[in-house]
């Protein structure tokens, strides 16, 4: 099936959300550290996997002050991204060929304070059923973070519903899309920060992008380096404008201990996004 409008909205929203949180909220930290070799059965055997202690590296070069790695150091020699070195920004690791498992792999990168996930799960499933790991705030020697598992602090973006309402003669509709975000943090300060940052985005606009414009590959690497988020206000174009009509933020009034050492604070951000379009044209 070819991508539809809702795919575009969800993709555009996720990229805007990520960019806004990183650039306006400065929600990232710069790190340097070692990458540790481990086996991953999901990756072709031709690659050796070296994982860092963090997940979700910043991949948007338009974020001021962020380090978007274009490669890593292997035995103190810089090795850039190539077909022989894949940066997996999502899982915080590199996939390499022609590097010994015992090699000393190091690098500098920015790690997001909040992991961003697109989710198909209901919010009750996210809150009730999932067990998250915590992103390591301080680099610990000899450890890498397991790939694929979801980690907190995190924001889960759920594409909720879409509704067309007649707007003008000639078939123009107001299309209203609801995006829900569930925020998990390990402290109330971070939760308040995210909720406050996005409560202030009401009546802002962002750019509609094609589903295919998502910048990462299936390996979590950039399709083209560097990637710069194109902010609407830097290049306004009403024909691709998505308008944030309403934002509601709230905190879950229930603090839960998810595991013995991780206390979770949960909040919700509900967005109503409108666009005027001709869905039957």
């Amino acid at each position, binding site marked *: 099936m070819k991508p539809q409008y809702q795919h575009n909205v969800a993709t555009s929203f996720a990229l805007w959300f990520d960019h806004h949180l990183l650039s306006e909220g400065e929600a990232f930290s710069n790190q340097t550290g070692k990458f540790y070799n481990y086996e991953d059965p999901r990756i072709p055997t031709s690659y050796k996997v070296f994982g860092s202690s963090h997940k979700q590296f910043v991949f948007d070069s338009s974020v001021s002050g962020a380090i978007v790695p274009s490669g890593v150091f292997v035995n103190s020699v810089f090795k850039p991204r190539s077909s022989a070195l894949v940066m997996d920004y999502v899982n915080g690791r590199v996939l390499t060929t022609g590097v010994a498992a015992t090699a000393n792999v190091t690098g500098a990168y920015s790690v997001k304070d909040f992991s961003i996930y697109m989710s198909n799960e*209901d919010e*009750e499933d996210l*809150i009730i059923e999932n067990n998250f790991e915590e992103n390591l705030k301080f680099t610990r020697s000899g450890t890498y973070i397991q790939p694929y598992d979801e980690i907190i602090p995190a924001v889960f973006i759920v594409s909720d519903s879409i509704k067309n309402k007649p707007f003008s003669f000639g078939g123009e509709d107001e299309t209203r899309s609801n995006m829900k975000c569930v925020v998990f943090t390990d402290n109330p300060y971070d939760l308040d920060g995210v909720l406050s940052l996005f409560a202030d985005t009401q009546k802002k606009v962002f750019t509609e992008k094609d589903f295919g414009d998502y910048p990462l590959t299936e390996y979590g690497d950039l399709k083209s380096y560097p990637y710069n988020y194109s902010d609407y206000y830097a290049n306004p174009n009403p024909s691709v404008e998505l308008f944030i009509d309403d934002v509601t933020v709230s*905190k*879950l009034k229930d603090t839960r201990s998810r595991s013995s050492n991780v206390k979770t604070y949960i909040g*919700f951000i509900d967005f109503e996004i409108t666009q005027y379009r001709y869905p039957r044209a």
Partner: protein
Amino acid sequence: MAFQLDKSVKRQVAQLIKEDFDKKIERSFNNIKAEMIRELMNHEITKEISIGVGASNSSNTLGGYGNLFTFIGFEAGTSPIDAIKREFDKTVIRFRTLTDDGPIWNIYLPAPEDIWDVTPMPWAEGRSWAKGIETGISGVGWYLYNQKKNYPQSRSGPAIQVKSKSSSKVRFKNVKYISDILSRYEKKFSELDETTIPT
């Protein structure tokens, strides 16, 4: 001079008929307002929530499973509908002026947003449960209810045991509620003109 006389006569006429007019239009207005509030109070959602923790899911929004009061997670003994009724009660009519085309009056009817503001979700106060009835409510409240129901500080009281498998998931089905009532009655109020006023 002629203009001034005309204006003065108009003012006197307006004054003379205003009292009588007020009575007539207010009667019609009050009938519609009463009908609107009756519709709110007789709505299946309202009735189910008004009954409270012991209600059955007569609105069928949960597939007949449990009830809305505990699904949303209200505190036992609270009356969540009261806030909506208070907003509906604020609907008023005010005579404004008399023109050559007839009298003009303003009707103040709550907007859906006024209702959202007074219906916070018990577990996430920025959200409105009344809006959620129309757009969808997750099962978080139901989960919190189930988690706490065996404890004395339970939101809906420890004695209430809704027949359910505690681990099963209850799906909420959206229905038309406040927006629908208000939009239909906004139309009815706007049709309130001289032809509908009994003389």
